[in-house]
């Protein structure tokens, strides 16, 4: 790792100020992604601000009947929370589909949203990568792209967002709450939180420098049948080729969000509307305009088949 200085934040405002005022400073929470990238010198922060002891680790009901999840709530604790298991089961299922038990014990809610892609060319510092080194090109376009995104991509980047948790958060219309260095607070709908690559794939979200996530809130529970289905190369501890998060309402309505397919958790209104026509129609609506490579075109068919399985699981649960 490149040398860095370290400080333990004592308040939210101080943490935000510290990161905003020091060049190359970063927050560190669970560290499971950041430290991995620092060892490879893909991330080289000059200063780390540890936000682990700021009391952001609580899960509480909101006055609106939803749930406010502290940014530092560990993935294990969120998946195991009694309210989440009962009312937001798709989130619990998505969380336990990701990573390993050890990593989930450390990884945090906010860190999971912010985790970087696992595109092999982002990780290989000898190769061009517009996300890692803006303007250097994209080695993935003509490279090993089997696991990469097929929709929402650009000529500059086809990296996929790796998170399972974020897919469920997108499905549930979560809101990301933040504080900035001036003490200002904002609430960002998760639909607007992650950015598509366009010409600037290194800009992955809408946070400003020093802006710290304090919580992720969920609206009132949707009820219905919750399903999270992840397809991957191994039975456990692997990133998704395709994942589907779904909630089926008692009134016949449904909503879907997708992982493994796009640079951000993917959700399309037309896919929800296509639910009465079945899995194939939902897949077609979700992937309208997809631009797969020669290697990852299989994800289109795989999405339809994964959705077919999701519909069957819904029938079985009913």
């Amino acid at each position, binding site marked *: *790792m490149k040398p860095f*200085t370290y400080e333990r934040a004592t308040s939210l405002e101080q943490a935000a100020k510290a990161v905003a005022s020091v060049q190359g400073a970063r927050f560190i929470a669970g560290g499971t992604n950041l*430290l991995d990238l620092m060892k490879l010198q893909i991330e080289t922060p000059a200063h780390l601000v540890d936000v682990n002891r700021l009391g952001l680790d609580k899960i509480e009901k909101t006055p609106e009947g939803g749930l406010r999840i502290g940014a530092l709530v560990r993935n294990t604790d969120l*998946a195991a929370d009694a309210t989440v298991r009962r009312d937001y*089961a798709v989130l619990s299922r998505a969380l336990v589909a990701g990573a*390993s*038990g050890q990593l989930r014990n*450390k990884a945090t809610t906010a860190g999971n949203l912010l985790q970087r892609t696992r595109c092999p060319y982002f990780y290989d510092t000898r190769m061009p990568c517009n996300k890692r080194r803006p303007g250097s090109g994209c080695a993935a376009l003509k490279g090993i792209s089997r696991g990469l995104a097929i929709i929402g991509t650009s000529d500059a980047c086809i990296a996929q967002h790796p998170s399972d948790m974020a897919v469920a958060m997108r499905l549930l219309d979560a809101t990301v709450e933040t504080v900035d260095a001036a003490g200002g607070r904002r609430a960002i709908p998760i639909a607007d939180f992650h950015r598509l690559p366009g010409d600037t794939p290194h800009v992955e979200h809408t946070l400003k420098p020093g802006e710290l996530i304090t919580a992720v809130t969920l609206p009132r529970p949707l009820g219905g049948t919750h399903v999270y289905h992840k397809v991957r190369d191994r039975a456990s501890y692997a990133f998704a080729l395709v994942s589907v998060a779904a909630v089926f309402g008692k009134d016949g309505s449904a909503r879907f969000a997708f992982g493994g397919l796009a640079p951000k958790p993917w959700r399309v209104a037309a896919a929800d509307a296509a639910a009465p026509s079945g899995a194939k129609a939902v897949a077609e609506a979700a992937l309208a305009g997809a631009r797969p490579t020669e290697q990852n075109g299989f994800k289109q068919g795989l999405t339809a088949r994964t959705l077919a399985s999701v519909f069957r699981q819904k029938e079985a649960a009913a």
Partner: protein
Amino acid sequence: MTSDHLTRRGLLQGGVAVAATVPALGGASTVAAQPRQEGGRMTPVELTVNGREVHLQLDPRTTLLDALREHLHLTGTKKGCDHGQCGACTVIVEGRRINSCLTLAVMHDGEKVTTIEGLGTPEKLHPMQKAFIVHDGYQCGYCTPGQICSAVAVLDEIEAGVPSHATVDLNKVALSDAELRERMSGNICRCAAYPNIIAAMRNVAGEAKA
């Protein structure tokens, strides 16, 4: 600091002192600072490792794994991939298993760490260590300390009702081979002792219930 009655539960609750036979601390509770490295400001870190308080001065880059191995000479915890993929570095911090390679020691100031040396000793093995021997849960042994730390914590997680990807009913976590296999997927064994590791865990879980 002798412990006459060493139990998994007691250890994880952090109350039980660990056997004095833990070798590596050499009687000193303060370990000399390593030479100052370029750009790194030495940071004081206090840990309770296997029931024993230690004070370290560390370059902030030092992972918990390197603090344990290189500074405290507790070499039972192994460095495999050093990227959180293999699980050889698994230790128990504040009652939870984590990859010690993917966390900085400075982030754990004031916390309790249990390594394989703290679970049991050659004279007084932890039940999970015994079960690994009885069921032949290893060949080369390199991944074994991580496997055992993980296995001990897994049984606690199941007991606490923490769900996994193999859990059928999120509100009723049951002990099954499928659960154990899924929960141990972050510990790779290139000798493929997996079936025997599951047998060892089954054995310990059964004894705990009886």
